[in-house]
């Protein structure tokens, strides 16, 4: 099974990198968008008997390492 894990900054946490990226998009002439937020994406192959088991293990990984839950949220998708 594959775990696809998205780690994003929590609402209210400033994202200066997102802001700089937004400025760069603007300078390229893009418009009609707002609130650029930068995040991280992890993909890993998990050996598990069920999707639930895989998700539980991925959740542990997020809580213990992949996300800093002081500032970040995570979303897990198992396929």
């Amino acid at each position, binding site marked *: 099974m594959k775990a696809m894990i998205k780690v994003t900054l929590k609402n209210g*946490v*400033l994202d*200066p990198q997102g802001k*700089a990226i937004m400025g760069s998009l603007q300078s390229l002439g893009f418009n009609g968008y707002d609130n650029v937020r930068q995040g991280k994406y992890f993909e890993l192959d998990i050996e598990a008997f069920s999707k639930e088991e895989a998700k539980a293990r991925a959740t542990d990984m997020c809580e*213990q*390492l*992949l996300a*800093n839950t*002081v*500032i970040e949220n995570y979303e897990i998708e198992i396929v």
Partner: protein
Amino acid sequence: MKTAIIQFPGLNRESDMIMALENVSGAKTQTVWHTETSLPDTDLVVIPGGFSYGDYLRCGAIAARSPIMKAIVEHANKGGKVLGVCNGFQILVETGMLRGALMRNANLKFVCKQVQLSVENDSTFFTSKMNKGDEVTCPVAHHDGNYFVDDETLKRLEGDGQIVFRYANGTNPNGSLNDIAGICNAKGNVIGMMPHPENMIEALHGKTDCRPLFESIAA
């Protein structure tokens, strides 16, 4: 004062730290590799600065999960002293021994310059030779020193005197909340700070402002 210096791959400020601890604090230092699972008999554990594991994932994140950290947490829980400087502070925050997080500097730049620090808590093992409100010049060198914590915890840190150092006179180099440069835990035996006091202790550094911090360790 028996002192253990923890060495992770990618740290590069340990020599300066050892020199400050031995020459100013009169400490007897011993370097401990990160794969060890126990500490030597020690009063103080110091995690110096640098770029452990190349700052992969988040600064300090991978070092914070290495074998030696369990022993350091136990040392702190028993009341042992712990000091983390720069990457060391980031590592202590990543282990949860200190509250909050150190994010990318607000101006996105690596800052390498001198700042003014004010001493906010003069009763810790690293500030006892100073007085509250004293200001010192101190160098900073980091890319991720932007201290962040949720409002409720921030109030508690402020109320309980857990802010040890603040950037003073508009010299906040990284956007830290409330100009926070260094904090301690509730018991006061674990201290983390972004600036490098070990680089402001002798004439060749330009000033010796930070000597009293290392003299505090000897006290």
